[in-house]
């Protein structure tokens, strides 16, 4: 029973992290670049939720959509500042530019909200739901439900709609997409927006139970990066599965050994995956085209 309780707890956090990693993959697929500010957008979402609920008294029905809009716009801004001016340069350049944008964001949070951890508004009310011996907080249930909903939504968007097909075409070859009349630039900007708004929503969901702080996003960027590597570079399903896997793995190892071992084992596992299955756990091997 303890084991199931732990897995449940890991999944609740994993669901939110899956959104972060999913957003990360969107941007990877659209641009081939790593957005190392992804974790800072989680914090941006959390802070936006705090600001909206305290200063503007936004009700919780409107909170998530508004946070999504705010972080979407920030993501579009990120594309214009950190990606478009550098898109003809090696992808590493974008890695650095997003890292710098993350740093700017962290300091904006610091100046605007102070250095201390802050708790965000509750989305689903306080309290726990008990089932037999298992318990899960209402907030966690809300997180899982929202995450599943958004993951399903993005699947529908990409697989079933014209916009989704165009987004995919742009991701696969920007110049080709442009040649056949797809507005690639705005679609890439939109992809950035979707990617960061997923992080932002995750932030709004997590802020209540797990707090936000100016530099709290850095480990989340690393987490998303690792999840995407484990799931397979560029794989959407892999990102979701990777996040869940890491999250549950962390909880189980922390519970049965210790937190330090869990962290160390995660990094060791990543290095091992690089050695043995560089294509990721859930992805087949593909050779790079010259």
């Amino acid at each position, binding site marked *: 029973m303890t084991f199931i309780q732990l897995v449940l707890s890991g999944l609740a*956090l994993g669901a939110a992290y899956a959104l972060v990693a999913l957003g990360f993959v969107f941007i990877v697929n659209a641009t081939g670049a790593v957005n190392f500010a992804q974790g800072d957008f989680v914090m941006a979402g959390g802070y936006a939720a705090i600001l909206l609920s305290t200063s503007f008294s936004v009700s919780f029905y409107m909170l998530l959509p508004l946070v999504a809009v705010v972080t979407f716009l920030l993501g579009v801004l990120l594309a214009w500042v950190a990606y478009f001016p550098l898109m003809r340069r090696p992808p590493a350049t974008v890695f650095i530019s997003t890292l710098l944008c993350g740093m700017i964001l962290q300091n904006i949070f610091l100046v605007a909200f102070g250095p201390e951890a802050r708790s965000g508004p509750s989305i689903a009310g*306080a309290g726990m739901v008990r089932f037999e011996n298992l318990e899960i907080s209402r907030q966690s249930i809300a997180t899982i439900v929202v995450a599943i909903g958004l993951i399903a939504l993005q699947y529908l968007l990409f697989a079933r709609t014209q916009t989704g097909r165009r987004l995919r075409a742009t991701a696969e070859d920007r110049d080709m997409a442009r040649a056949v009349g797809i507005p690639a630039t705005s679609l890439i900007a939109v992809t950035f927006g979707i990617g960061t708004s997923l992080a932002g929503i995750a932030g709004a969901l997590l802020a209540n*139970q*797990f*707090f936000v702080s100016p530099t709290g996003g850095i480990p989340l960027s690393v987490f998303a990066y690792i999840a995407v590597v484990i799931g397979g570079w560029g794989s959407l399903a892999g990102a979701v599965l990777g996040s869940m896997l890491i999250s549950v793995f962390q909880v189980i190892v922390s519970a049965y050994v210790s937190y330090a071992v869990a962290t160390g084992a995660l990094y060791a596992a990543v290095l091992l995956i690089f050695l043995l299955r560089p294509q990721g756990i859930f992805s087949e091997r593909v050779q790079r085209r010259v």
Partner: protein
Amino acid sequence: MSVHIPYTVARSRLTCGCIGFLTVLAAGTTAFAADYYLPIVMPITGFMSVEGGSQRNGAVMAFEDSKGISVDYPVFDTGTSAAGAATALDKALSSGEAVAAATSIFGTEMVAMMPVAEEYKVPLLTISGLSKITESGNPYIFRFLPNDREIKVAHARYVKEKLNLSKPALIGDTTAYGQGGFKLLQEYLAKLEIKPVFEDSSIAPDTKDMTPLLTKVKQSGADSIVLHTVAAPMALIIKQARASGMDLPIITSSSLVEPTATALFDPAELANVCAETPSAPEARATPEMKAWADSYKERFGIEPDGLALGQYDGVMMALKLIGEGADTAEKIREAFHEATYQGVAMTYKSDGEGDMAHDADIVCWDGTSRVPGIAAHYAGEEMVLK
């Protein structure tokens, strides 16, 4: 509400920032108009900036309250880093003939600043709890909060003697603060013949999910949790424990006795939680304390904490000694070793190594308010375990 910007203009952070910025520029370029120079070198940014901010407020308040002695007291940011602290102190001490410097709460920074203090022969007034800074034989360190070595005695004794608990779970984090306190608690609980039923000191300060930890605590059959961590993981542990129905007593280190930390809780979640603290000005237990706390709140717009008060008393003591003729760094250093000073929080007297404060409170929350009440007081000999 954070306090990481010079206090002069209370409301607008931006204006605040600009003015502070100009102040610093001015301090760097103009000759000192004041009679004495006593720089403030503290973590104004970085992860210790909340504590550094309190500390800075306390120092600044003391300078403002000093009558008849004109002191120049520019603020230098250490950035919560050892290398930054050494350089910042170097900058501060080379910018003028300092009689003393009010320096960081962060032990790692203090360790890095100590050789610089020795080089310039200037006493440092600190509130860092890290034991080894006064125990390494450096004669320039004066500490105005109890040494962790003493305050952890109060922490452990309260668990044993007042609460009669025998099966605590002992938890620390991986920060400098957490690692130091954890070891002392381990030592003292053993001396009090308490064997923690569970120990874990590997909690990283950015850990989110405490379920694994709490599961292990539950399984160990602990009757209480003894915590020594920084504020964020502490809040997560307490909140998640309460949410999953664990209502056992929790006795924490002083990081919880901070307005910014208690703001993370619903008052009800704090029921049955106690914490050690060098002093608890927010409880306003004495008339002096109340007057001081009200004045602090009026100036800075936030509730005070023991850190601010410790630094306030330390600087006030220095100013008093200056007023009595100790007008050079060396004279102040000698006077600190000799003098006794009645501050707002307690009476300060050096034990010969530069530890000036030997009092501690245990405060507890009753579940109705975020402001705690004083539950026990330890002083002098009570803070030493043979």
